[in-house]
C-alpha cells in the first residue's frame, strides 16, 4: 500500500517535470499569442509594436473592403479547384499502386517526390514552364496564353501546381488505408461475379472512407491557408495579382509589408473562423459517408 502511494507520488512529480517544457512552450508560443492576436484584431497598431484598443474598427474596415472579399473568394475558389480533383487523382493513383503490378515502389517514389522539394523551388520551375513568352507549354502550343498573368487563368494555374505537389502525399496516406482492406472481401466479391467498378464502390470506397475523410480535412485546411505557392508564383508586379491573392497572402502583405498588424490580425481571425466553419461542416457531413465499422 505504502509502495503504491510512493509510486504515484513519484509519478506525479516526474509527470509534471516531463510535460513542463512542452506545456510551458505551448502556453508561451501558442496559447498566449492566440489571445494576443484576437486582442490585436480589435486594436490599432502604433509604432514600436504597441497596440491601442479601438473596438471593431478593423472588422468594419475589413468587411467593407473589396480587396478583402476578393481574397476570401479567391481562397474559397482555390479550395474548390484543388480539393475534389486532387483527392480524386490521389485516390486513383493509390488504387492503381495497390494492385499487383511491377515497379510499385518506383512509381510511389516518383509521385511522392514533390513532397521533399520546397514549394519555393517547385513554384520556380512551374513559373518557368507556364511563362507566357518562353514557357515550354506555350511554345509547344504555339500560343501566347497568360497562364500566370491573365486574370482568368492565374488561380487555375496555381491550383494545377498545388494538385501536382500534393498528389503523392495524399496517395501514400490513402494507400496505407487501402492496404488495410482485407483481400477476402474482394475474393468473395469475385466469386459473386461483381465487376471491378462495382467492387470499387461497394468495398474499396466504404473501407477507405475514414482515411479519405482525414485527407479531405487536411487538404481543405491547407488550401484555405495557402501562401507559399501563390506568393512565389505571382509576384507583386504581376497584373493578375488581385485575382490570385489569397487570405494568407493578403495577411502577409498587410502585416509584414504594409505593417498594419491590427488589421492583418482581423484577417487572420477571419481565416481561422472560416477554417473552423468548414471543418465543423465536414465533421457533421461525415456521418453520411464515412464508415467506421471495419
Amino acid at each position: 500500500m505504502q509502495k503504491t502511494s510512493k509510486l504515484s507520488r513519484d509519478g506525479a512529480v516526474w509527470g509534471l517535470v516531463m510535460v513542463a517544457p512542452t506545456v510551458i512552450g505551448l502556453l508561451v508560443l501558442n496559447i498566449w499569442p492566440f489571445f494576443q492576436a484576437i486582442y490585436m484584431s480589435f486594436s490599432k497598431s502604433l509604432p514600436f509594436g504597441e497596440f491601442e484598443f479601438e473596438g471593431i474598427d478593423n472588422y468594419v474596415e475589413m468587411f467593407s473592403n473589396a480587396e478583402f472579399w476578393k481574397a476570401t473568394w479567391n481562397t474559397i475558389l482555390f479550395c474548390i479547384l484543388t480539393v475534389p480533383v486532387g483527392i480524386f487523382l490521389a485516390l486513383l493513383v493509390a488504387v492503381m499502386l495497390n494492385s499487383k503490378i511491377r515497379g510499385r515502389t518506383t512509381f510511389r517514389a516518383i509521385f511522392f517526390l514533390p513532397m521533399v522539394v520546397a514549394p519555393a523551388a517547385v513554384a520556380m520551375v512551374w513559373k518557368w514552364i507556364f511563362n507566357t513568352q518562353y514557357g515550354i507549354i506555350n511554345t509547344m502550343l504555339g500560343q501566347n496564353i497568360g497562364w500566370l498573368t491573365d486574370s482568368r487563368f492565374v488561380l487555375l494555374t496555381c491550383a494545377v501546381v498545388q494538385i501536382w505537389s500534393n498528389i503523392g502525399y495524399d496517395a501514400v496516406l490513402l494507400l496505407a488505408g487501402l492496404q488495410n482492406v482485407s483481400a477476402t472481401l474482394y475474393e468473395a466479391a469475385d466469386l459473386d461475379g461483381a465487376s471491378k467498378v462495382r467492387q470499387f464502390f461497394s468495398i474499396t470506397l466504404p473501407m477507405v472512407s475514414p482515411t479519405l475523410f482525414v485527407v479531405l480535412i487536411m487538404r481543405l485546411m491547407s488550401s484555405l491557408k495557402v501562401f507559399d505557392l501563390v506568393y512565389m508564383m505571382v509576384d507583386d508586379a504581376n497584373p493578375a495579382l488581385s485575382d490570385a491573392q489569397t487570405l494568407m497572402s493578403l495577411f502577409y502583405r498587410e502585416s509584414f509589408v504594409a505593417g498594419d498588424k491590427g488589421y492583418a490580425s482581423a484577417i487572420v481571425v477571419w481565416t481561422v473562423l472560416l477554417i473552423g466553419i468548414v471543418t465543423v461542416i465536414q465533421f457533421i457531413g461525415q456521418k453520411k459517408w464515412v464508415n467506421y465499422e471495419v
Partner: protein
Amino acid sequence: MQTSMKSNKRLSAGLTYAVLILGSVIMIFPFVWMVLTCFKTQAESMAIPPQILPSHWGIENFVTALQSLPFVNLYVNTGLLILFRVLCAVLFSSMAGYAFAKLNFPCKNLLFSVVLVQMMLPSQIFITPQYLMLAHMGLTNTIFALVFPGIVSAFGTFFLRQTYLGIPNEIAEAAYLDGCNKWQTFTKVMFPLTGSSMAALAIFTAVFAYSDLMWPLICNTDLNMMTLSAGLSTLNGQYSTNFPVLMAGSLLAMIPMVVLYLLFQKQFIQGIAMTGGK
C-alpha cells in the same frame, strides 16, 4: 469465357501501367526541364521552337547563382534550423508524450487539452505575436529566430503519446521492480522502444521545417541569415527573366533534400504515412 477474362485482365493491367507511366512523366517532367534549363544560355532557354538540350553543358549559371546568393550560409542556416527543430521536437515530445500516456499527475487532462487546442488552430494566427515577441527580445536575424516557433511540438507530443499508449504497462512495471525510478524507466526502457516513431516524427519535422516559407521570410530579413526557401524567393525578384539562373538556384536549393530522399526513400514514405493526416 476463360480467355476473355484473361485478356480483360491483361487489358486492365496495361491500362494501369499506361496511366501510371503517364502520371510519372507529368511528375518528373518539371524536374527534367529544370535540370536541362540550368545548363542552357539565356538565349537558348528562350529559343522558339524550344531547344530541348543545351548546346554545351556549362556550369556558368550555377556560378552566377552561387555569386548572387550566399548559398553556404543558406545551407548552414537551413541545416541548423532542421537539426534544432528535430532535436527539440523529438526530445520534448518524447518526454511529454510518455508522461501523458503512462504517468498520473495533477491537471493531466487540462494540460493535455493545451496540446489539442494548439493542434486545432492554424499556425498563422500565432505568427504576428510570435514575431513581436522575438522583436522585443531583439533576436531577429538569428538561428534561434528560425527555430523559435518550433521549439515544442504539439503534434509530436500527440503522436508520441499514441506510441507510448501502445506499449504495454507491464514493461514499465517490470523495470520499476528491477529498481528503476520513473525517469530511468523512461530513458532506459521506454524511450528506446519508440525508435521508428521518433524517426517518423524527425522526418516529418525536417520536411516541414525545410519547406516553410512564411516564418523564415518574416523573422530573418538579412540575406545571410535566411533559409534556402526564403533565399530563393529573393532570387525570384533579382532575375525575373533569367530562367537558367533561377533554375540553377532552385536546383541547388532542392538537391540536399532530394539526395536524402533518394537514399532513405522507404523511411521518408513510411514516416509520412505514419504521421499522416496532420
